[in-house]
C-alpha cells in the first residue's frame, strides 16, 4: 500500500449540500478501489492566485489516503470528466503526518489575503 495526498479545487458556486455530495462521491470511489481514507481536510473558499477556467475563487479539499496505483487512476479518470472540479493534484508521500494542518486558522488566512491585496 502506498500513501498519497490528494487535493481538489472545486467551483465556488457550490452549496453546502452539493459539497457533501461531491466529497461522498469521491470517498466512495476510493473505498471501492481498495483505498482507505485516513483524513479529509476542508481548506474552505480561497482566492486563487490566478484565474483557472475563468474562476477567481475555489473550494479546496484535501484527502490523505492509502491505496494502490489503480485507485488513483480511477479517481483521476472521474475528476477529468467532472465539470465541478477545476484542478487536482496527487502526490505520493513516504509518511503521512496527520497532525499538522497549515490551513486550520482562519485568522491567518485573512492576514494572508490582506497581504496579497496590498
Amino acid at each position, binding site marked *: 500500500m502506498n500513501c498519497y495526498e490528494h*487535493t481538489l*479545487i472545486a467551483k465556488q458556486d457550490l452549496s453546502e449540500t452539493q459539497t457533501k455530495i461531491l466529497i461522498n462521491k469521491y470517498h466512495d470511489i476510493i473505498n471501492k478501489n481498495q483505498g482507505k481514507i485516513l483524513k479529509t481536510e476542508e481548506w474552505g473558499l*480561497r482566492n*486563487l*492566485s*490566478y484565474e*483557472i477556467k475563468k474562476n477567481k475563487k*475555489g473550494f*479546496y479539499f*484535501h484527502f490523505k489516503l492509502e491505496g494502490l496505483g489503480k485507485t488513483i487512476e480511477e479517481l483521476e479518470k472521474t475528476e477529468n470528466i467532472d465539470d465541478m472540479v477545476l*484542478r487536482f*493534484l496527487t*502526490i505520493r508521500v513516504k509518511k503521512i503526518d496527520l497532525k499538522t494542518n*497549515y*490551513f486550520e486558522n482562519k485568522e491567518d488566512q485573512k492576514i*494572508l489575503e490582506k497581504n496579497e491585496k496590498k
Partner: protein
Amino acid sequence: MKRNKKRPLKKKGSKFSKLSLFQKPSIKFFRSCPLSEKNAPVVDYKNIRLLKKYLSESKRILPSRITSVSLKKQKELSRAIKRARSLALI
C-alpha cells in the same frame, strides 16, 4: 640551481599582495543553510508562509546564492513551489 633561487623570490611577491582574492577573509560572510538546521521547518507545498520567503516580488524563485540554502534543500524548495503554483496557492 637557478630554479631554486627563483622560487623564494616568487614567494616574496605573494606576500606583497595582501588583499588578493584567494586569501581567506577574516570576517565570515557565508550563512549556513537556514533549512538544514536543527528544528528547521519542513519544506512542504502546503506551507505557503515558508515558501513565500523564498520568492521574489514577482513570484520567481530566488537563487540559493542569495538565500544560502543548501543544494538538497533548494531542490526540495523548487519542487514544493512548483506544486503550490499548480494548485494556485502562490
